[in-house]
């Protein structure tokens, strides 16, 4: 579903020309440089890219949790239901975090406070955003733990994170994120640090919860398999910018950008006699010294003079399919 086409309903989350730079001693790293996308209610959008492409910084920028210094949101707009987050005061932003938009992180082993019980950590968010007593908040925490499929939730609520496995800790993180019924859940590589079997359980859990609670999910991952299985739409990021975005099926069936094509080709296939994996030659450019023109020029098989002179804009190549490539645009 192309979000910009339906003029009547404004998207839940709009990110418009977001630019987040890191000011380091050796120069300005443009970690996020002109990223735009929309997220509609109850939708799952996958933000895909390799390490360091700026997908996590994009997520942290939406939460306004980029550490400053060295990071700074230099420009652009982030709107939830039309409300501009970048204009909010710190206190107003605190009321948005955890309440309208919640986030779960890559490292369940270190993302929970080791000296506070799991139940208390969930209840803390409930107390903060809802007008409830301490015991009501605790009951809500137990209820959330049950919802995310933790056995014996009353007992687990009084346990500390080190008494739980990695998968269970990620469930606690999800319970914490969803405890205040946020409209948006940002999941930053939620399964990367987990065993493969646990990964599948966590992704199934997220999908089930989305059906039950109806929140939109921004799923950040480098795993194309996860994107294919769980997302409605996907946006591919490369070196701080979105290079292609489309409905997930369309993206996998008909990738237009040479980077997306390379990514999909590099997925190993089980049913062919492949001895070598396809790779994308070269490495990601230094974000402090991005070239003039297209970011992908140094690794692109189709590159020509025009690509080195001007950066291709993200334009609609098919209905609901946007690509930032001079070659794909014909």
């Amino acid at each position, binding site marked *: 579903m192309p979000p910009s086409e339906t003029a009547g309903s404004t998207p839940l989350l709009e990110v418009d020309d977001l630019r987040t730079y890191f000011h380091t001693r050796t120069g300005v790293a443009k970690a996020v440089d002109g990223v735009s996308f929309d997220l509609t209610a109850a939708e799952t959008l996958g933000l895909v890219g390799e390490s360091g492409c700026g997908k996590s910084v994009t997520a942290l920028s939406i939460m306004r949790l980029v550490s400053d210094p060295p990071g700074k949101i230099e420009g652009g707009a982030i709107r939830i239901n039309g409300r501009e987050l970048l204009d909010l005061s710190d206190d107003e932003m605190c009321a948005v*975090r955890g309440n309208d938009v919640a986030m779960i*992180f890559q*490292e369940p082993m270190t993302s929970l406070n080791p*000296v*506070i019980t799991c139940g208390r950590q969930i209840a803390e968010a409930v107390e903060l955003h809802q007008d409830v007593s301490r015991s009501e908040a605790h009951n809500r925490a137990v209820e959330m733990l049950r919802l995310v499929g933790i056995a014996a939730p009353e007992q687990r609520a009084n346990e500390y994170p080190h008494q739980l496995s990695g998968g269970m800790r990620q469930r606690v993180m999800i319970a914490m994120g969803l405890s205040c019924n946020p409209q948006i859940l940002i999941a930053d590589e939620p399964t990367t640090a987990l065993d493969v079997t646990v990964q599948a359980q966590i992704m199934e859990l997220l999908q089930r919860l989305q059906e039950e609670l109806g929140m939109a999910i921004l799923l950040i991952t480098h795993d194309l398999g996860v994107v294919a299985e769980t997302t409605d739409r996907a946006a591919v990021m490369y070196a701080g910018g979105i290079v292609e975005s489309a409905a997930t099926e369309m993206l996998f069936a008909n990738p237009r950008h040479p980077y997306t094509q390379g990514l999909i080709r590099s997925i190993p296939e089980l049913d062919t006699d492949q001895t070598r994996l396809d790779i994308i030659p070269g490495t990601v450019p230094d974000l402090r010294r991005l070239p003039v023109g297209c970011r992908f020029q140094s690794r692109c098989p189709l590159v020509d003079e025009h690509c080195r002179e001007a950066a291709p804009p993200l334009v609609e190549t098919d209905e609901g399919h946007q690509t930032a490539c001079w070659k794909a645009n014909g």
Partner: protein
Amino acid sequence: MLIYLAQRLLALAFVLLAVSMIVFTLMHSVPGGPFDTQQAKLPKAARENIERKYGLDKPVWQQYLNYMSHAVRFDFGIPYQQPQTTVAALIGKTWLVTLQVGIMTIIVAFGLGITAGMFAAYHQNSWVDNIVTFFSMLGVTVPNFVIAMWFILFFGVTRQWLPTGGWGKSGDCLCYDLLCSDWILPVLAYALAPMAIIARYTRASIVDVIREDYVRTARAKGLGESKVMRRHVLRNAQIPMVTALGTEIPNLITGSIFIETIFRINGLGKFFVTSTLNRDYPMIMATFLLVALLWGITFMLTDIAYTLIDPRVKLGAKKEA
């Protein structure tokens, strides 16, 4: 918990036994004795008489057994420096004064040190941080007797705001009321070095914790900065601080010869040095055993404090393995 405590106390008793043996052997193997001609010009017969009285003519192992048989009954002998009293009475009287100085110093050093460290950590690399770092360096590097001299010169002599020395109104009486202002200069001079160490350590611990993932989680929940600090950062930062800073306490409550001499405080600190110089065997033994006991208790309390603030630590957990 009780079994654990009993085990630790038993271990502490063995530590004290070992310390007593080592100190006793060492002090007797050092050349010179308490009644040598350098210490006191006495006729040979008189000296032998005194040595016989204190049992110093016997072999060292007999002297040790004799000392220990009295010590377990809390009879620590007579200090050769002040034979009109007993070691227990002398330590009891002077240590009370030293304890007052020490406890006030601990309050000042920990209170100001932790506050300064928190500010520095929170405003990391700002001018606040630089000022705290500068004064911490100063506090650690400048010895407290130099600082004490500056304080006396400026506040006591030039400005005459505060007394230059003494403790309590009549010299060695107890300083009951804070209003008597005797305590300000010695406590500040004594507190500066530990305060600097505490500030630096607090800053380092907090800076480490602030970068942790769970602090980001706390912010992502929507907690404001002050709650993030109080509930999530400080509770974790105090775990390493307990180990490193607990050891300041036995140091501070046993006094300092410099502070006590400069400010004319009749405390215990000076006996650590004078006893050794005078070969005052009973006082050497008593002061060393006291220090060993205080350190042992401090380590035990530190370990117990761990279990209270860190749920990952369990006392005596090795038995289950």
